[in-house]
């Protein structure tokens, strides 16, 4: 077993403890969830630096639950595209190895503060556990798609479908599923870029959406090709063929 060195965990510029850290990501549409423990001192200084008003309300020596409540209250419940919020940031996991090399995990996506709770009141130093989620937590409520695509208007003599011109690409070519998916994903918070798709892409069947949920449209389009949606660490996304993939590290 390689002798490993100290491990550092950060959420933006807020340092956390290596112990008790956890980050889980799955395929699909559910957000990745991270848990990180911070000391009271770190959190207070972070609050003073970034949100003095909130600290002012708390007083000079706030109790742990008050800090946790204040953080939970401050957790963003709405998505704003511009990074003005203080309560979003990148997660970074660093590990110093004995040979001097460093391993790191640096997801390029924002993690949003979701919840703060007191881990153990008696413990010293006093710890607060912060819970983060990635941008997928906003996808259910944000993102709207209005489009009419591949609306058929009968069949040609050779049996091929004819489409209403305004509903196909350049008035000629029916939209592919991946193209429509790209449009829908662009409406989601974070606008993930689609960088991979199943090989059996094809023209989509008729799709009509007026103010429809971008998430629902995206889910339906992924379902059309029986694919698996995959949100990458890099903030891009792909549609995978179930059962096909390579176990290994992303560069």
């Amino acid at each position: 077993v390689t002798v490993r060195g100290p491990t550092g965990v950060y959420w933006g510029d807020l340092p956390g403890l290596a112990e008790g850290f956890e980050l889980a990501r799955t395929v699909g549409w559910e957000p990745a969830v991270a848990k990180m423990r911070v000391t009271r001192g770190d959190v207070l200084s972070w609050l003073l630096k970034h949100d003095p008003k909130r600290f002012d309300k708390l007083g000079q020596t706030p109790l742990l639950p008050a800090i946790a409540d204040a953080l939970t209250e401050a957790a963003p419940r709405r998505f704003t595209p511009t990074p003005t919020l203080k309560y979003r940031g990148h997660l970074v996991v660093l590990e110093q190895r004995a040979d001097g090399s460093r391993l790191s995990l640096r997801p390029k996506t924002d993690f949003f503060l979701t919840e703060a709770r007191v881990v153990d009141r008696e413990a010293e130093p006093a710890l607060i556990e912060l819970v983060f989620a990635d941008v997928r937590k906003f996808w259910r409520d944000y993102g709207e798609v209005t489009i009419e695509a591949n609306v058929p208007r009968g069949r040609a003599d050779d049996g091929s479908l004819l489409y209403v011109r305004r509903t196909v690409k350049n008035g000629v070519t029916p939209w592919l599923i991946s193209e429509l998916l790209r449009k829908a994903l662009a409406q989601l918070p974070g606008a993930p870029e689609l960088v991979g798709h199943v090989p059996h892409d094809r023209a989509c069947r008729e799709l009509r959406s007026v103010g429809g949920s971008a998430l629902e449209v995206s889910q339906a389009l992924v379902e059309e090709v029986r694919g698996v949606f995959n949100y990458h660490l890099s903030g891009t996304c792909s549609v995978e063929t179930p059962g096909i993939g390579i176990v290994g590290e992303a560069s």
Partner: protein
Amino acid sequence: VTWGNDRRLFDEITGKGIDAWAEEVPDATNLYQKRLAVDAADEVLVVGPPPVQTIRVDYLEFVLPVDVPGFGGLPGTRKILPITPDLIDQLVPKVGQVAAAAAVPAPGSGRVVPRTPTIDPFSKQPIQDAQRKAAEDAAAAAAVAASGSAAVQSALGQTSATLDQLRATLLFKAPFLGADWPDAINALVPSDVLQLLTTRLWKWVRLPAEFERYGRILDRAEAKDGKRLPAFVEAFTFRVVDVELTKEEAEGLSPDERTLLEQQYQDVVARLREVKKRIEGLSLKADQLARAVQQAITAAERTLDASGLTDPLTVAALAGNAGNPIALLDTLAKLGDAWASEGAPALAPDSSPDFWELAGQLSERWPQLAAALLKLPNATDFDPVARELGQLRADEKALEAEQLKIAEKIDPANAAVLKYAAAKKKFEASIRASGGASLDGSALATMQAAAVEAAAARTATPRITKKRQTVKRIVPLPRQRVRATIHVDEGLIELEEAAVWPHDLSSCDPRECYAVPLPVAITFGTWNLPEPSVAHQAPLPTGHVTRQAILQTSIDTFVASPSLSSYARDWGHILPAAPGSGGPLRLAFTRGDRKSGKAPVGPWPFRIASASERLQVLLPLRSFTGRPDNRADVLAVAAELAEAAMLEQVRESGTITVLGPRPVNCDGRISAVRWASDDAGNVDTVISLDPDAEPLPGLTVEQLERDPTEPLVFGIDLEDLK
């Protein structure tokens, strides 16, 4: 398929790290393992779609779909009316009305006259006794089957219609063919009904009620290039074709006609001979009489000159009958009779000189006298000899004309000779009349022309003419495949042409004919599913093949007629032995019996249900291909599936732990990645590999939540707002 990222790999099969992960995957914590599937089945039941069997149903039921428009924005409905004599009764006028209307010839469409009931409308031969009996039976049964024979009979306008009449009525009541019905009929039928009849009657059929259990009309079991062939419909139709005839015939007579005319000719010649003989005798008699009378007159004139008698009335008065015309006529009649019966020799000069004197005068004058008394315009009317002679000469003239007429037909050369003889006779008569003093120019010219004609006729050969003419003929087609549209949802079949023959195949115009509906058959694929709720149907009457009276009548006629029975050779249903035997395919396998498909299994075998075409049993109509069905192939496919289900399958499933925080993305194999601290505060990477079980070979797992045929609609559906 990988995108973008350069990945460092780990061989999860061997459990060994590759490249960057070498030696960093802790052996003890490598949770990746091969897990035995727990669902290896001991008993497998493969359930497939029900077998598709090709069947043929004959004598389809003629129906009339009537579209009823909706009211107040409601959608219209379609009523399906079975065609019965009653329905025809309602839609077209009653027989009496039609007959009355048909009696008036309609311009341009010919006259419609019902056929004599005792003539077979197809063969045009009188119906033989046996056939007639069969037809009577059929018609009687048909009348019973029809909804109320009384209605049919009352339509005839009589209560005791004979069966032949009834049968003729059924044929007659079948409406006419063609779009333009006779005007007299048009006036009696409302235009919308007429439109309905001309476009839909005898063109729509459906399965009879007793075959409705066969349900939807599917493609047949027979396949070509891997595709099942569509159902087809067979029906009788007809064509009206233009036939160009070249008619080559001698101008002349048929042997029968010639024989008849020759007999007439001989008869005329004999009569003419007789008449001429009588004329000759009578002329002789008249000449003798005239001579005798002339002598008497000569003698009498001398007497009269002496006595001064000149006035016939005075002469008559001398006979003692003065002032009494009736008595005088009586005397004259007796005198005439005496002349006629006894002739001139009987009036011998040894009789009374007075009488002879009188007779002499009267012979010269009495016709005028009698005519004056009776106010007759023609004096010869009272001269029996002259009258008879005139009559005979008229007869002679008529007979000669008749002889010439017949001769022109049977022997033009002889006719020319006769004509010449007549002309010659006329010319000679004219010479005689003039006493040889002058020639009648026109008579001479006629005679010369007749002579030339006679000479030409003698050398002429029989003339032959060629005629080219185009005639229309009705060609009845035997039963064969016809174009038809199958309305699967409604269970209706729409033929492009009416499945009828015209009742009079010798007619040139189908519009002058009545439509005789003939049986229609359909050959199609069916699941033959068991149907628990089959409506009870009374069995058909003996000798019947359909409940439709009109159709049964024409079928009986067809079968009974010797000239048409060959058309009925391929009629009839081809049906599975056991109705409703076609449940879904069920083939059972166990570890002990992996091939037969009939292994005994418990109540809960592992079930594989698939609608795959590879599991579709196809039972073709043997008579078409003679090929065995595909049950052996299906059994092989099912055995393969069962074999796969009985395998102890290995699923690759588990986790890999890699030391250190590693940037690992999810993908099609990695369902989740978790980074977590261990007790020492080191963050390790746990990779979850938990793919779904592979579907069974040959099967696709359909788990679509959305209907794949419907559009994808999200948000506000504008279709709802319209």
